[in-house]
């Protein structure tokens, strides 16, 4: 039921609301509808065009990716340690090289691959040897070396790599899948430092790490040194940028000698989990990988 207030409100609204100054042209809404439709069509067209261009770009980007080069078949056997099941021989294939180590001798060779056959290429670094270990089965190692020298056909099935060289025979290698140690990205702990004519064991906690971005730092030693390092298959070139000598560094003679060794161009080799750096008359450093 309406109250008096509502009734009065209704009356006054009707009375006080003025008439429009002029009537509405009946054609105007139709023109406006047409204009609105044209605007809608135009906006829709623009949106569809933008969407089409965006989708086209996405598709073209997806389609214009250069065809990836055929995958190097050797990549399936690279960067892991292959261990001979019949001897102490191990081999790591890495970036066109073949790193051999039998627990005593180590060698680095270029690797050639032709028609599914791998062959030992030229020697890249000096082969290191040690005194023959007592009980070592050199007969089996000999077969390992003769087969791997190639050309040998290879086939991988899971964790087993079989190398076959006609007239010599086959060797079966296994991998645990553990990534082979690489110079870059591994933290190396100094275990031995020697200089020509003298034996000097450095017992300090010195580590070396070369990062993928090319920087290196020799940690834990007094002084600490840091800088950049570039490397080839057999050499490292250290460019020192600076060093820090802490007040706590009491005896710096031996550490300084170590840090001096990490300067300029040195040769290196990786044997198993060891990194050997030969700095000529500045010394010889043996590091072990810190996992």
């Amino acid at each position, binding site marked *: 039921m309406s109250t*008096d207030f509502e009734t009065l409100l209704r009356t006054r609204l009707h009375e*006080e*609301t003025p008439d429009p100054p002029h*009537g509405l042209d009946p054609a105007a*809404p139709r023109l406006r509808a047409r204009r609105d439709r044209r605007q809608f069509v135009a906006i829709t067209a623009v949106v569809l065009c933008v969407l089409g261009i965006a989708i086209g770009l996405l598709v073209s980007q997806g389609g214009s990716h250069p065809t990836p080069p055929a995958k190097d078949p050797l990549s399936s056997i690279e960067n892991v340690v292959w261990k001979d099941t019949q001897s102490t021989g191990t081999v790591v294939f890495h970036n066109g090289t073949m790193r051999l180590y039998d627990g005593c001798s180590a060698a680095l060779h270029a690797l050639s691959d032709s028609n599914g056959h791998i062959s030992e290429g030229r020697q890249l670094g000096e082969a290191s040897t040690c005194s023959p270990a007592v009980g070592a089965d050199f007969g089996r190692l000999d077969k390992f070396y003769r087969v791997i020298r190639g050309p040998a056909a290879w086939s991988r099935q899971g964790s087993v790599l079989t190398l076959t060289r006609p007239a010599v025979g086959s060797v079966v290698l296994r991998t645990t899948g553990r990534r082979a140690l690489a110079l870059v990205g591994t933290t190396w702990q100094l275990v031995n430092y020697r200089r020509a004519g003298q034996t000097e064991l450095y017992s300090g906690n010195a580590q070396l790490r070369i990062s993928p971005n090319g920087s290196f730092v020799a940690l834990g030693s007094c002084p600490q040194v840091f800088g950049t390092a570039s490397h080839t298959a057999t050499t490292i070139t250290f460019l020192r940028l600076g060093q820090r000598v802490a007040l706590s560094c009491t005896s710096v003679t031996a550490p300084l000698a170590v840090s001096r060794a990490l300067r300029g161009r040195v040769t290196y080799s990786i044997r198993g989990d060891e990194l050997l750096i030969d700095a000529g008359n500045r010394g010889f450093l043996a590091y072990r990988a810190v996992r």
Partner: protein
Amino acid sequence: MGADDEFTAFVRAHSRELLRAAWLLTGDWPAAEDLVQSALAKAWTRWSRLRRPEAALGYVRRVMFRTFLGWRRRRWIGEVPTELVPDRRVELDDFEAVDARGPVLDLVRRLPPGQRAVVVLRYFADLTEAATAEVLGCSVGNVKSQTSRALAALRAMPHVDASHDEELL
């Protein structure tokens, strides 16, 4: 009678009522005309389905009021800033426009848009609460509460007192 003729007849028959309601909502004739034309333009695109005059009027009213509330929510009414003042289409000058407003209309315009829409529909368009709810797309309860608040606000406004209703209204 063709669709064009029917639509023309519809506009001629209802544009005055629609324009006045729109004026109550917006407070000026250009905006009111724009609001009504928007609603009629939408109605024209659906005219083949709105042949019955009462259905067409309900549809236009629904579009008009919801468009008005949408304008207020967006705080944008499609006006395009121009460097030059456009030609005035309204024949009333500013003084006449002010003079044309009665005290009640000034009070109604002080209401929030939602309450103003309810007041216009209930007391100017003389719709029931259910019809008002249908136009605004809300519940009857919502219409009741909006109406109640609007009436309370109108009563509480300066110079409006329930004891002087007759005097002031």
